[in-house]
């Protein structure tokens, strides 16, 4: 019993520090559950950046102009960098990168369900930048203030770079929506397919979100899923209006009284299916990731051999 009391005293002291706004640094004492939750969240986030390269990589050699190709290449490079910042932040919590990657490849660890959707046309690259990166920024800006120092610092860097991603996506759609009827239809089709999955990126409704309350007390999460989702909708609908595209929701309506848009029901059954591994590209994404890992084995072996050789000098 004594140890239970002691650990709950330590937890209370930890919480008091958080409440004062003091950031947690790698060597500070922290409750085991806080450490585990952060490892899970940061590594999922890292995996999402890495897997997120795949739907876009699909378009690097098919981008319509050389400049668009260079821009997309730069963007995909950024995603890779974001994954690395985040793996490093997770590693400060005492977990090895090899373990984290293994968890992704065996399917034990999750990544954002949005990356299990295919990018069928060039307009999808626009929609991914505008909507998916737009939703990601909205999720990530509050995380710049999260309680764990290395995570919050990584997020500050990431958010600065995400703005480029969102704008290049919107720029693609501006071009397409001002183009031929066929190009505009392509943009509309992309919006139709990406709208609902983007809204699901904020996670389940607050009433159904299992870890929200604890994560908010720990300041790992600062704004509720529904709060962020509403903010995203309110900002994005006028942008769709500018493009002359129609948001695929018959029930979408400005609510004067609330000062927000009301929306129709989100297809959560689809979300659950994708999370369970039955999205359009789940298997394909993991297979591609595994193959890339296996085909890169010789690079890792060469680096190890090089390091071992120089350690002996």
């Amino acid at each position: 019993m004594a140890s239970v009391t002691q650990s709950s005293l330590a937890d209370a002291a930890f919480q008091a520090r958080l409440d004062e706004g003091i950031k947690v640094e790698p060597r500070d004492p922290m409750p085991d559950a806080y450490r585990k939750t952060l490892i899970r969240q940061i590594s999922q986030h890292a995996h999402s950046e890495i897997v997120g390269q795949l739907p876009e990589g699909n378009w690097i050699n098919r981008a319509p102009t050389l400049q668009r190709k260079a821009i997309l290449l730069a963007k995909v490079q950024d995603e890779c960098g974001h994954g690395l910042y985040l793996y490093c932040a997770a590693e400060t919590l005492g977990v090895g990168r090899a373990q984290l990657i293994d968890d992704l490849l065996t399917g034990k660890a999750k990544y954002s369900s949005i990356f299990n959707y295919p990018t069928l046309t060039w307009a999808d690259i626009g929609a991914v930048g505008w909507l998916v990166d737009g939703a990601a920024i909205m999720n990530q800006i509050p995380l710049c203030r999260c309680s764990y120092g290395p995570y919050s610092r990584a997020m500050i860097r990431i958010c600065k770079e995400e703005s480029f991603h969102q704008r290049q996506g919107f720029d693609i759609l501006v071009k397409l929506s001002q183009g031929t009827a066929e190009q505009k239809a392509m943009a509309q089709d992309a919006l139709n397919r990406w709208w609902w999955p983007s809204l699901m990126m904020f996670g389940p409704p607050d009433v159904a979100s299992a870890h929200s309350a604890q994560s908010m007390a720990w300041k790992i999460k600062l704004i509720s899923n529904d709060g962020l989702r509403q903010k995203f909708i309110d900002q994005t609908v006028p942008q769709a209006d500018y493009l002359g595209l129609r948001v695929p929701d018959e029930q979408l309506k400005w609510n004067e009284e609330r000062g927000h848009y009301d929306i129709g029901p989100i297809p959560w059954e689809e979300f659950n299916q994708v999370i369970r591994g039955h999205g359009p590209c789940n298997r394909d994404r993991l297979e591609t990731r595994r193959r890339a890992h296996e085909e890169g084995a010789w690079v890792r072996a060469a680096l190890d051999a090089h390091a071992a050789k120089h350690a002996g000098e």
Partner: protein
Amino acid sequence: MLYEVFIRSQHGVAHKHVGSLHAPDAEIAMNNARDIFTRRNEGISIWVVPSEAITASAPGDKQPLFDPAQTKVYRHPGFFKVPPEVKNI
């Protein structure tokens, strides 16, 4: 031994390099760093790192290292002109 001194000025921000000092070991380097660099409440945390543990790029490598970034102006969000009537992007 020469040490490089890094100070975190407030909770949450990154340590920043503030200078160097000589000390026979890390503990004394830490004490000296406190005495020399934090007389005006500059910090809440100090790192001392043996200078020889730092691998640095040479100033002469500036061009090959950093010039390639200059041709990629599109990495900056300002490269994309957002129409004035579009907000929050």
